[in-house]
């Protein structure tokens, strides 16, 4: 049984006077893939970024309600945000490797945590690159610049970097939208492999991608959670007319 690992209650978010999220309550289950879909500006990325407090970095943001991860409200004043982001990793739309070697990109988080032992770092780098299905492609050039990798490889490197610090949850904001179909396929395969160990929440504009990789799907519109159910239900027989209209491309 997959227990709830993230739980939001009446979560609202305002950018200044404008409300971007409207009282969203939902749960994300452990070691499953949950997809967020909806038209641009519907709030899905904003909602995703609430799970590791990335919105804290934006001025003028106000949040009401709570986000509990494993029972703890991550917006409580005593929460260490750095610790939180170690538990909740993130991969972005555009791959953003550091201008360093492949090895250093993956080892970076561990070094920040104070790990200096060479063998330990080597092990983490190998394990993470294997976990991100990149090891075989880069094992002979670990000390070359990460910027020399292809777009798809760079994205998998970012996933390796995220899992190197052993988070519980991986947030992915359109991780394959800038990739060609072959690289996208590799990232999707990787996501399906990773859910054995991680809880994954992914924002995607590609509904077929959501059908291929997710177990649950949430549809957002104008800052509201319209429908949340199993992916099969959402894409074969949605309960709400708005969901039906969106997934069949008849929206608006």
């Amino acid at each position: 049984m997959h227990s709830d690992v993230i739980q939001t209650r009446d979560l609202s978010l305002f950018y200044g006077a404008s409300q971007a999220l409207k009282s969203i309550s939902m749960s994300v289950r452990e070691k499953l893939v949950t997809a967020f879909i909806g038209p641009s500006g519907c709030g899905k990325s904003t909602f995703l970024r609430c799970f590791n407090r990335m919105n804290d970095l934006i001025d003028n943001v106000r949040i009401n309600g709570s986000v509990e991860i494993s029972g703890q409200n991550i917006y409580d004043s005593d929460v260490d945000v750095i610790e939180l982001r170690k538990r909740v990793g993130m991969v972005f739309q555009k791959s953003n490797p550091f201008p360093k070697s492949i090895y250093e990109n993956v080892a970076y988080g561990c070094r920040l945590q104070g790990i200096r032992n060479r063998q330990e770092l080597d092990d983490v780098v190998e394990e993470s690159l294997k976990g991100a299905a990149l090891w075989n492609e880069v094992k002979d050039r670990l000390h070359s610049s990460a910027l020399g990798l292809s777009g798809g490889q760079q994205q998998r490197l970012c996933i390796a970097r995220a899992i190197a610090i052993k988070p519980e949850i991986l947030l992915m904001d359109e991780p394959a939208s800038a990739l060609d179909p072959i690289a996208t396929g590799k990232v999707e395969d990787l996501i399906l492999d990773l859910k054995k160990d991680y809880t994954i929440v992914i924002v995607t504009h590609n509904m077929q991608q959501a059908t291929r990789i997710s177990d649950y799907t949430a549809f957002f519109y104008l800052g509201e959670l319209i429908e949340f159910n199993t992916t099969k239900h959402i894409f074969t027989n949605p309960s709400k007319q708005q969901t039906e209209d969106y997934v069949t491309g008849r929206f608006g």
Partner: protein
Amino acid sequence: MNLHQNQELAELKDKLLAMASRVETAITKGIRALVERDDDLASKVKIEDDEIDELEIEIDDMAVALLAKAPLARDLRFIIVAMKICQNLERAGDEAAGVAKQAIRLNREEQLKPYVDIPRMADMALDMLHRSLDAFVTGNATVAREVLPMDLEVDDLHKQLQRELVSYMLESPSTITRCLALLQLAKRLERIADHATNIAEEVVYLLEGRDIRHGNKGLDT
């Protein structure tokens, strides 16, 4: 899907209805060929069946092209259901051709008895087919569900006919050839009613997303 694809879905539906109309015609002609002892009419059923087979291939081709566009939700159900309805119609068309074939065989001999139950069975099967397709066109799940119990009536009539024909055969072995032909013909009508039932079940799935086949109470997808 965009508006252009909506047009394609409408074309798929039209093609399916054209096929359904051919199947209804084929069944009607097959039964008339028996009742009116008209071999010419019976031979026309074969032509109808060939056209039905061509339509099956065209419809499947359209459906595959639409599936390649990765439709979802109701569009996805519509295309899947269209393919299944198409397959059931094609088989009903084959049954009509079988009815016509038996009619030609029976017309060669003296009529065993006035045909009462067989035309009745045919009317019931046609009515079921017509209603299930009407439910598909009008999007009415209630009409589709009403078709399901009608299949039991056809089955009962079929069993009654079987008993009657067995008693004929026991009484007079000279009737055996004709009785066997009539039994086969009746079986084909009973199968047409089964295909109509399948179509009605598919229409419920299309409209409600519930699978009610094989006595399933309708598990939500």
